[in-house]
């Protein structure tokens, strides 16, 4: 067990001001409205492992990802990559920025349509001064294209000439161009068909093994996460509610929300397993429930749950689990 984590996040919090414009607010006598998108999120990722964040829409997964990469300033909390801290003012030092890249959900929006694929992939090399001359740059682009299963001749084409899956391969090649070893992937296959998703997930696993990549992998799809992750963090309304190694989480989910989520997934195996019907919907994050925000939907909720926010202890943030309460 290596001691030092590759990625470390401590007490991350992000509050968005979602108030009406000042004048309208004053005229209508409204208070400022704050939305706590992420609250008290802490986790670490070991070198070469995949940490997955799962949760439903609006649970704060992308906000965590954007804070970790330094794209979005956190309201509070600390972040570090390979022991190099993120400076709230200046971001990560240049040498580290090279090592940290991001892949997004929408392969159509994330590639500049006016640039040729070769230019797109070479851009991080240019930004970090990694190629000594154009020949070297071209050779490296060819190598990267082959690495992600494309043809070196594709370098002269434009993004619109590629399918969604091929574009995601291009995005992966670009992420690897600066020799990044930490990749943050936000729903990288959610816009893709399942057969294309399989190609991309297999590719990402191969690259991770061959290059020793550390991944922060975000998805709302539990089956995808089961395939990709070493460790999983389940988010609900901005908080981590459970963190566990993948085998443990699926074999013995402990948090009531994790169990509900697993029960909600359609049973493709058609095993006829018995399931609890899902209750209710995710509440409005502007006025979340008091105490444990899951309490209005939780079969185990009691009065303590309505007032006291459960803290993360031993991988679960739930009073019932901590009190060993079954019903």
């Amino acid at each position, binding site marked *: 067990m290596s001691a030092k984590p590759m990625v470390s996040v401590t007490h991350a919090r992000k509050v968005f001001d979602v108030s009406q414009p000042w004048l309208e607010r004053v005229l209508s006598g409204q208070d400022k409205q704050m939305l706590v998108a992420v609250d008290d999120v802490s986790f670490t990722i070991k070198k070469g492992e995949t940490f997955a964040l799962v949760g439903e829409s609006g649970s704060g997964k992308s906000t965590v990802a954007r804070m970790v990469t330094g794209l979005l300033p956190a309201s509070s909390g600390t972040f570090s990559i390979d022991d190099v801290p993120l400076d709230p003012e200046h971001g990560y030092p240049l040498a580290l920025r090279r090592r940290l890249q991001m892949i997004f959900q929408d392969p159509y929006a994330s590639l500049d349509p006016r640039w040729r694929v070769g230019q797109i992939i070479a851009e991080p090399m240019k930004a970090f001064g990694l190629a000594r001359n154009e020949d070297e740059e071209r050779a490296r682009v060819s190598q990267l294209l082959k690495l992600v299963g494309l043809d070196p001749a594709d370098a002269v084409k434009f993004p619109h000439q590629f399918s969604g899956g091929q574009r995601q391969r291009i995005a992966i090649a670009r992420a690897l161009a600066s020799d990044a070893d930490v990749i943050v992937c936000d729903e990288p296959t959610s816009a893709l068909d399942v057969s294309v998703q399989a190609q991309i997930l297999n590719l990402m696993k191969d690259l991770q093994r061959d290059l020793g990549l550390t991944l922060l992998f975000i998805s709302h799809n539990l089956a995808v996460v089961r*395939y990709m992750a070493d460790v999983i963090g389940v988010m609900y309304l901005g908080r981590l509610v459970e963190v566990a190694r993948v085998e443990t989480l699926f074999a013995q989910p402990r948090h009531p929300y994790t169990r509900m989520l697993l029960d909600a997934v359609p049973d*493709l195996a058609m095993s006829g397993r018995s399931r609890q019907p899902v209750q209710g*919907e995710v509440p409005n994050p502007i006025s979340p429930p008091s105490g444990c925000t899951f309490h209005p939907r939780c079969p185990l909720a009691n009065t303590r749950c309505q007032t006291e926010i459960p803290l993360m202890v031993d991988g679960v943030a739930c009073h019932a689990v901590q009190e060993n309460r079954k019903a």
Partner: protein
Amino acid sequence: MTTLSAKSPVLELRNLVVEFVTRHGTLRALDGISFSIAPGEVLGVVGESGAGKSLTGAAVIGLLEPPGRIASGEVLLAGQRIDHLPIEELRHIRGKRIGTIFQDPLTSLDPLYRVGEQLIETIRTHLSVSEQEARARAIALLAEVGIPAPEKRIDGYPHEFSGGMRQRVVIALALAAEPELIIADEPTTALDVSVQAQIIAVLKKLCRERGTAVMLITHDMGVIAETADRVAVMYAGRVIEIGPVRDVVKSPKHPYAKGLMGSIPALDERPERLLQIEGAMPRLNAIPQGCAFHPRCPHVMPRCHEARPVLAPVGAGQVACFLHEVGQ
């Protein structure tokens, strides 16, 4: 299941061909679709983006966008052809005999009108009941689809409902005129998984109770496994396999259907690698000769390049592949 197929079908497609006439020539988007749906039956229609699922639904309800048109084939509703009816008549059928549910609930709901007004109008257009009766029916429907306090919510506007609640309202609206058939195109795709499970359960329960036939279009095999009685798998504008849900999901026969099922990550196990079909579905202007799947098929034979396999009976279903051409 046998009792179902004994009844005459609610919907039957016979060799349906849909084409787009463009500057670059005629594109054939649906190439000979045939299937039927029995009363009370849920037929799942699956396939990847661009396979032709939505177009099949649109062709049935006469909502093909020009230049798309039915080039040949027939659509029969309860035994009567509806593919060549005048627009007005089709519109009436669409409201009364065929209900629709789309991915985005706001396609079906008018943001300017209260939910109740829309339900009552639909009910009164198609059923001869009084305003009061219609309102009572609307409240009952909202209760059935799981809207809490329906007698209050009925006067709310669509924007006051969450995404999941809106989709429940759309289901109520689709059922309001007591249709024989519901066409649901990706009804849960935009919803979170916990909400999706609830919506699917409501849709399934209500259609079962009423004997409404459902054409459930989705790319989500899990939803199909939970909901459908039979499944049609589409590829490049054709149905390549159709059969009872358990057969198609657990032991698909067509090489594409096999690849598709194997490429889906599962919840109950973690394979070393996901099964991978190389390549991608062809574009409409480049659909291969013979079997449209042949450039990607691991079992391709010489004849697959020239001859096109047709759906032929295999077990309880039908498969369009030369590997499964047993007998004659």
